[in-house]
């Protein structure tokens, strides 16, 4: 057969050709859209940032925010005592920037005293005081308010107002993450407005839809399903924001978001999806791609218990060598490259790229089919059936992997893994489930293996312990290793960074030898940003964190920047 060069179908990437008619139409539109905005020069704040998110934010009050989008949006309206640094350091106070708190002192090993910034005011003009901080702490701790941050601040035993602008935090014991716990989880809420509302009625109270904050932006308009409009607070005590308005719109389909970015209809999306989407954006000169480390990692979790009767060990995965053999039989680097493209990375354990632990040098499991074969044969999987799968006592070496259908990346990884494991004589059946069904099956332990994805906070201790520690609430596969548990505890309670590091390293090495999962990949995330935006930085845990400092060059403004901006 002749081997010709592949036929390529011409498919222009950007907007290549615009017909005359189209040009006329666009011109007409531009006239309509600009007619209403006078041609005044841009004094800061000016312009509009349009942000695409995939799902509607559930709230605009931080204490109820759960999704990352709601956290980013509420973060623009409400301030914490201090903001975590861009390096996401959570040990001591390194890198933290003042916000509501102007300064702080470590009074003793269990007390931090904050001095509040006297310039800080609520939108209604009231000053922000120590009373608000105390109120906020009580709010976050209150069972009826039921904030999911409640557990993260459980080491804080008391918050008291010493003066109108002095507040003291007391901790149950000395540890490295005290400052992080005092500042990262809570954003200060206005006591004078919210204190009179019964706590259980707060969640649905009218004030939660018209929040009064102290941040760089104020809520302009909120359409539940579609858009949140934020307007700059020109009197913000830390300096006026750079951009006059932020419109956050809900666009569920990432293809649509990417097309909108390319067509300059939107300015920012923190997630672009597949590498091919990222590539499309890269090819557009008006839009920049910003890579930043993600706080998530993807894994194949093994169930160590028999899914049909949890008291019995799993017939396959209770055996450590079978688990290791599966890890050795998949070419994780190839999967990462195929699925994530350039930003590929294989994790060494349950850690994400945005996590400070990422730099610790723990060896990755190598791709070594020979070693895998050796391990399987040592366990009696010596024969092979007609389809090439290993057989022992007439039983095929076969298991089912649960995959949530909502995640394209995970599905792709599963399909590649299926093929690689087939080559090693292991049958992996893929069972795609709708996200909630997948979650329920996984959480109830009704699976052989499940393809999961955990997001982490800057401090990963709670998330790692919850997912892999004995009896952890999210330990779906019932993994239990007392040595690992104690190393984890030691790492969390370490009083200096070196000690913490030693314990973390030991814990991760242990997980490598006795793997409860295959750590598949730790993605780096790509955000699309319109080129006219300057001073842009995307922090891994919160896309909105630095947005108030973003700016638009006045000579690069688009017509839509001016429409309706007061």
């Amino acid at each position, binding site marked *: 057969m002749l081997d010709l060069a592949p036929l390529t179908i011409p498919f222009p990437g950007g907007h290549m050709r615009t017909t005359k008619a*189209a040009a006329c139409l666009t011109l007409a539109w531009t006239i309509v859209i600009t007619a209403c905005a006078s041609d005044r020069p841009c004094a800061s704040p000016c312009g*509009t940032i*349009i942000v695409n998110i995939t799902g509607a934010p559930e709230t605009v009050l931080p204490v*109820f925010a759960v999704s990352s989008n709601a956290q980013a949006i509420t973060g623009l309206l409400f301030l914490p005592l201090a903001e975590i640094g861009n390096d996401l350091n959570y040990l001591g106070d390194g890198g933290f920037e003042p916000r509501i708190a102007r300064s702080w002192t470590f009074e003793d090993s269990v007390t931090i005293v904050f001095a509040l910034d006297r310039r800080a005011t609520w939108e209604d003009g009231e000053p922000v005081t120590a009373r608000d901080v105390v109120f906020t702490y009580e709010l976050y701790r209150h069972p009826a308010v039921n904030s999911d941050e409640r557990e993260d601040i459980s080491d804080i035993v008391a918050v008291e107002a010493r003066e109108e602008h002095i507040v003291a935090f007391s901790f149950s014991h000395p540890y490295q993450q005290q400052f992080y716990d005092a500042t990262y989880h809570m954003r200060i809420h206005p006591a004078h407005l919210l204190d009179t509302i019964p706590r259980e009625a707060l969640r649905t109270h009218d004030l939660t839809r018209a929040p009064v904050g102290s941040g760089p932006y104020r809520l302009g308009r909120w359409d*539940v399903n579609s858009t949140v409009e934020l307007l700059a607070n020109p009197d913000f005590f830390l300096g006026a924001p750079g951009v006059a308005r932020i419109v956050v719109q809900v666009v569920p389909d990432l293809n649509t978001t990417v097309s909108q970015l390319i*067509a300059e209809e939107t300015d920012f999306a923190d997630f672009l999806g597949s590498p091919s989407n990222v590539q499309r954006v890269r090819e557009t000169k008006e839009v920049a791609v910003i890579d930043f480390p993600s706080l998530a990692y993807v894994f194949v979790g093994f169930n160590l218990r028999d899914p049909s009767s949890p008291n019995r060990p799993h017939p396959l995965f209770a055996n450590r060598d079978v688990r290791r053999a599966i890890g050795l039989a998949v070419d994780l680097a190839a999967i990462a490259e195929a699925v994530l493209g350039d930003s590929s990375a294989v994790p060494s354990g349950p850690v994400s790229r945005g996590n400070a632990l990422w730099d610790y040098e723990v060896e990755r499991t190598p791709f070594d089919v020979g070693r895998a074969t050796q391990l399987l044969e040592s366990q009696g999987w010596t024969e092979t059936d007609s389809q090439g799968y290993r057989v022992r006592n007439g039983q095929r070496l076969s298991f089912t992997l649960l995959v949530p259908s909502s995640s394209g990346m995970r599905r792709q990884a599963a399909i590649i893994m299926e093929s690689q494991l087939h080559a090693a004589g292991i049958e992996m059946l893929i069972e795609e489930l709708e996200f*909630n069904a997948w979650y329920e099956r996984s959480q109830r332990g009704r699976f052989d293996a499940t393809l999961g994805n955990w997001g982490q906070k800057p401090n990963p201790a709670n998330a790692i312990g919850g997912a892999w520690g004995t009896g952890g609430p999210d330990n779906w596969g019932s993994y239990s290793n007392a040595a690992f548990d104690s190393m984890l505890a030691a790492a969390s309670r370490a009083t200096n960074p070196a000690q913490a590091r030693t314990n973390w390293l030991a814990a991760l090495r242990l997980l490598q030898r006795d793997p409860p999962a295959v750590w598949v990949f730790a993605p780096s995330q790509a955000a699309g940003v319109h080129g006219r935006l300057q001073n842009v930085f995307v922090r891994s845990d919160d896309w909105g964190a630095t947005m108030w400092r973003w700016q638009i060059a006045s000579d690069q403004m688009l017509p839509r920047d001016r429409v309706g901006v007061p």
Partner: protein
Amino acid sequence: MGRFVLRRLAQSAVIVFLVATLTFVLLRMAPGDPVRAQFRDVTVSQEVIDEYRRSWGLDRSMPVQYVQYLGNLIRGDFGQSFSLHRPAWDVIREALPNTVVLALAALGISFATGMVLGTAQGANPNSRMDHTLTVITLAVFSIPIFWLGLMFMLVFGQWMGWFPIGGEVSPVYRGLPLVGQLADRFRHLVLPALTLGLGGAAVVARFHRAAMAEAFAENFIRTARAKGLSEQTVVLKHALRNALLPAITMFGLSLPVLFSGSVLVEYVFAWHGMGLAAFEAVGRRDYNVVTAITMIGATLVVAGNMVADLLYRLADPRTAES
């Protein structure tokens, strides 16, 4: 006729009630937990989960929940949206007008295009034009709707830049003058409405062609022609009037199809209507929102069918006699 209307109203109420019950039960049977669905990919303590469940009344047994739900419903309360911390009605109040606008535009496109094509075909059956149009309408009917949407988006949105790519209005809509707002709405409506309406146009054209051909074959058309009426008068006055009945039936039947199609179109075009809201709410296991949207969708469909039936009776008194 009055009894007929009353009976149909009663039946419609029963249908909507049954649909609500079925949705209620199906949702709670479906795996997944509304509380867990709020915490995607993040760990959360059981304590928090339990408190949510208690405050949403999910800790009670299904029959108790059902009775409470019905009680609220009778008072016109669709319950709270779990994921948005506000009444489910708020979600619908925002989404419903968007869906109605899209559906009406799509219906308009379907019927206007379909009737014109169908009339052109039916008036000259088996002509060359008839055959060409048959193939074209078949082709349009056969295109998967989401594919059509993406292609429209790519060609007319991105390459040509004629129309915006998604959303029902621009993000800066509110700052526009009235004329600008109208133009903005129109520009956003074109692609989704075409996507949703073209498939329907093909169906309408096919049915209308058949009806027209049949009407033309009937004697009275021959009589009308014999009387020396112009071809145009024959087509418009006589044949069209008689072919209206199938069109009315089509209208009733096309409503459910529209609602199903709108889920995909709304998803692709980020059109914040009921279909998209339902899609998201199913994903978040937001029981009350899903049930409310299904009920309202069912009400619209049932009402549409009822109107179609009434029109049918008014247009053709013979049906009332049997």
